[in-house]
């Protein structure tokens, strides 16, 4: 994992380092303006590495929030292990690097005229555009689950007020209550996320509300790192967590947020004290406005560069894209941001893009001292993104407690490292 991540960085270094050193073979240095929409894992990384590797480039990052709260580690906050501010990051270090950070919402893109319109009415022109808007909830796709319902039964699938609302509901829940998490079908942001979430909520219940129960109603018959999670739940929480597969009638078809109840496909009603609905998702709205989404609501990209397959000059990274087998993770978005920075600099310099490699490791905490992971390295093989054979894998099923504790430490190390890499904050 570490080695491959360094390889990816090395590639970018090679690509744009050449421009900085003014090597004779380079036709021209990258100049012009790149606009990046979205200051999360993909966008902030792209902005940073564009500026870092090509200081003459004007790089504008558009992000409404002055402070970015990460979904990674938000489950630790929900489980009471860390403060909310521990997952917040400012854009100060990006600004210090020379990235122009504009706190606004991008409302539209004119890809023919190459301009981005901000919600206030201003518009910005670009030579290349990067979109990393993350996901939007498909309101109403799950019957009864709209924005009003989310105020009663939070999704907490974008970190912020939703996450705090869910935490306050968990704190207010009496001992002996039932926490129900509704898990969506693939594809969705962070495949292991729902299962890490129930793990850390179980850890909170175990110490604070031991008579409570957790039910996961799933639209799937299997889930990420299932064997490892299930074994960990058994070891740490006994039978507190019940997972209901799609076949066992776990698929929720209707939500009654006011009653905190849900109805399953075959007509069962399940009532919760705290109801957390992880709803169906799609690429962030701006991707639609830019015309880069297809009928699935996600963005198909050219594998080598992550340029849109549909619109030239628009690069898209992160959760919004169809990058499978790369998962919708912060780690993947970050390496995609680096690859896109290299590809854009190459394009502006009139060179072919460097060969791309991406990496991903998803750590999940089953308990505070019990970590598990899945890792992979990805490359373009036969014209499509594919996992490099033999590059990845999951934590061993039979590891001992010391191994799990070390992986938990690695998870913390990973979080500090990636936060520092992207926002300069750890």
């Amino acid at each position, binding site marked *: 994992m570490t080695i491959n991540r360094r390889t990816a960085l090395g590639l970018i270094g090679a690509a744009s380092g050449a421009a900085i050193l003014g090597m004779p073979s380079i036709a021209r240095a990258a100049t012009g303006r790149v606009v990046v929409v979205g200051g999360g894992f993909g966008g902030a990384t792209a902005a940073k590495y564009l500026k870092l590797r090509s200081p003459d480039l004007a790089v504008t990052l558009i992000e409404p929030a002055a402070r970015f709260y990460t979904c990674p580690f938000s489950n630790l906050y929900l489980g009471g292990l860390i403060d909310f501010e521990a997952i917040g990051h400012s854009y100060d270090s990006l600004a210090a690097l020379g990235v122009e950070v504009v706190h606004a919402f991008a409302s539209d893109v004119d890809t023919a005229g190459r301009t981005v319109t901000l919600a206030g009415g201003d518009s910005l022109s670009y030579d290349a555009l990067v979109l990393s808007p993350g996901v939007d909830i498909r309101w109403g796709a799950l019957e009864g689950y709209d924005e009003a319902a989310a105020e009663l039964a939070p999704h907490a699938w974008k970190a912020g007020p939703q996450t705090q609302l869910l935490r306050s509901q968990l704190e207010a829940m009496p001992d002996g209550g039932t926490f129900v998490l509704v898990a969506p079908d693939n594809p969705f942001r962070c*495949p292991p996320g729902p299962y890490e979430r129930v793990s850390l909520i179980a850890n909170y219940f175990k110490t604070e509300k031991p008579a409570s129960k957790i039910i996961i109603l799933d639209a799937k018959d*299997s889930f990420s790192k299932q064997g490892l999670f299930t074994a960990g739940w058994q070891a740490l929480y006994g039978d507190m967590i019940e997972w209901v597969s799609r076949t066992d009638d776990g698929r929720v078809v209707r939500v009654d947020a006011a009653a905190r109840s849900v109805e399953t496909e*075959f007509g069962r009603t399940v009532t919760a004290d705290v109801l957390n609905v992880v709803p169906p998702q799609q690429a962030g709205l701006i991707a639609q406005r830019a015309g880069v989404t297809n*009928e*699935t609501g996600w963005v198909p990209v050219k594998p080598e560069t992550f340029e849109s397959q549909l619109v030239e000059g628009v690069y898209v990274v992160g959760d919004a894209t169809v990058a*499978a*087998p790369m*998962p919708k*993770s912060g780690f993947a978005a970050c390496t995609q941001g680096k690859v896109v920075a290299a590809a854009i600099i190459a394009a502006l310099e009139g060179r072919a893009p460097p060969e791309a490699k991406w990496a991903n490791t998803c750590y999940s905490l089953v308990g505070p001292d019990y970590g598990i992971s*899945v890792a992979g390295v990805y490359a373009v093989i036969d014209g499509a993104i594919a996992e490099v054979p033999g590059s990845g894998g999951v934590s061993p099923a039979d590891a001992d407690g010391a191994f799990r504790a070390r992986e938990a430490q690695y998870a913390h190390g990973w979080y500090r490292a990636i936060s520092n890499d992207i926002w300069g904050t750890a």
Partner: protein
Amino acid sequence: MPTTITRRDAIGLLAGAAAAPLLARSAAAQPAWWQTIPAAAALVGDAQPSGQGIAIELPLVSEDGSAVDLAVAVDRPMTQDAFVESIHVFARGNPSPEVAEYYFSPLSGRAAVATRIRLNQSQTVGAVAVLSTGEVIAAARDVTVTISGCLARDDTYAATDIMQTRVRAPERIAPGGAGEVTTLVNHPMETGLRTDAAGTVLPEDIVRRLIATFDRATIFEARFHRSVAANPYLRFFVAPPRSGALVLRWEADGGRVAEERLDLVVS
């Protein structure tokens, strides 16, 4: 003239008269999807299938080939005079391309089904519909199958209560209307293609049929093959002419059967 020329060169070189046989040849080189599957070709026979009025829903990219949601609907009236008799689903890239067949009657109300299928690689999935008038409709969709990085799954079958069924139907169906029935039966759908740890082939063991009768008359039947996902799942329509009993009967290998009876209310 060189003996090997690329197609683009050929089109550029040979204008006019020569272009016609060339195009004919390239059409022959690229047969319709159903011509490439013997069972589908046999079904279509001499008919000239149109692609109109049939809709296939599949994800463009499936992140789990072991259970891919598929829906097929043929938008044609279902009357005694003319109705959709059957829909046949094929997955060209699977070890055996026949996936399932669905037989309808005018009391089906709608020729539409939804199920979950196995796709062992990226490929073309097609459906052929045969109408009581002899008309044939065919369409296909491409689907990319990729196991997503965080989704590494094992293929052990966990359910213990094999042949347990679930059924849901509307509480009430309006006269003349159609109601959707959702059903599922627990079953591993062992393909006969897997081996156990010792290398022994696990024998094929699947659910073969689901028969739906209304007041004892068969109104819908589904036939399954090994490419139907474990725990066969099916949604289909019924248009009962009056209140009455809907009986669903599943038949699996080893003589195993399951039956469910529902009282449908038409009012």
